[in-house]
């Protein structure tokens, strides 16, 4: 099976840029735990499957750019962002 690197790499970079900007204000009432991010990932996986791949892309049965985007967002949040109130207080 051939994996096309283009959408995977560029999608990851764009997702990482947006994900690194997630800074949850500790004074706000927002509190998203790890479970919420796992739920968002599963929802994104389902959305990518139902979107389907681009024409001519036959490597995966889902939208690979969409999937790379959500992976990049979550990696960006974990590495450079502040994802929840508990993590901010530590």
């Amino acid at each position, binding site marked *: 099976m051939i994996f096309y690197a283009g959408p995977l790499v560029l999608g990851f970079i764009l*997702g990482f840029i947006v994900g690194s*900007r997630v*800074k949850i*204000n500790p004074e706000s009432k927002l509190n998203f735990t790890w479970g919420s991010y796992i739920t968002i990932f599963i*929802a994104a996986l389902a959305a990518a499957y139902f979107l389907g791949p681009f024409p*001519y*892309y036959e490597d995966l049965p889902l939208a690979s750019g969409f999937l790379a*985007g959500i992976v990049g967002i979550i990696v960006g949040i974990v590495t450079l962002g502040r994802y929840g109130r508990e993590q901010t207080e530590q």
Partner: protein
Amino acid sequence: MSTILKLFIYPAALIITCLGINTILGGHITPGGGFQGGAIIAGAIIFCIVVYGIKDTPLKFSHDFMSSMESIGALLYVFLGLAGLLFAGSFLYNLGVDLYSIVPGYIQNIFNYPDPTHAGIIPYLNFAVGLKVMVGLSAVVIAFLGFKNELDEDGEGIEEIE
């Protein structure tokens, strides 16, 4: 805003962002592209700002971040154009595809987008435009809300700012 909106909008904004990324990446073979995808991502960010307010929004774009992303997007576009001018003699020549066979093979490999359509530099141009539009459209709303907050704090009219 209501609690339901505050619970729903942040996860929805992350999914909308992914849709924008997908639109940017499909610009060379499907309807969409850099501007449309960037506008979708900016829509997700504006959605968060409208619901949570500019102070509490989880997706925060600082002034430095916005100016650097705008610059990176514009410079990437110009450098891709200048690379065409340098290696093929015309601005924005598609070095990855090389229709006139005037570019050495190794240059062609560098600028070729690794996918089955071999679109050359077009997806990279979409990427650059997407970055610029994402930040540019968000900056408009962030600036307007920032001015509004400043006015509210002063309790004065627009003349005070001017």
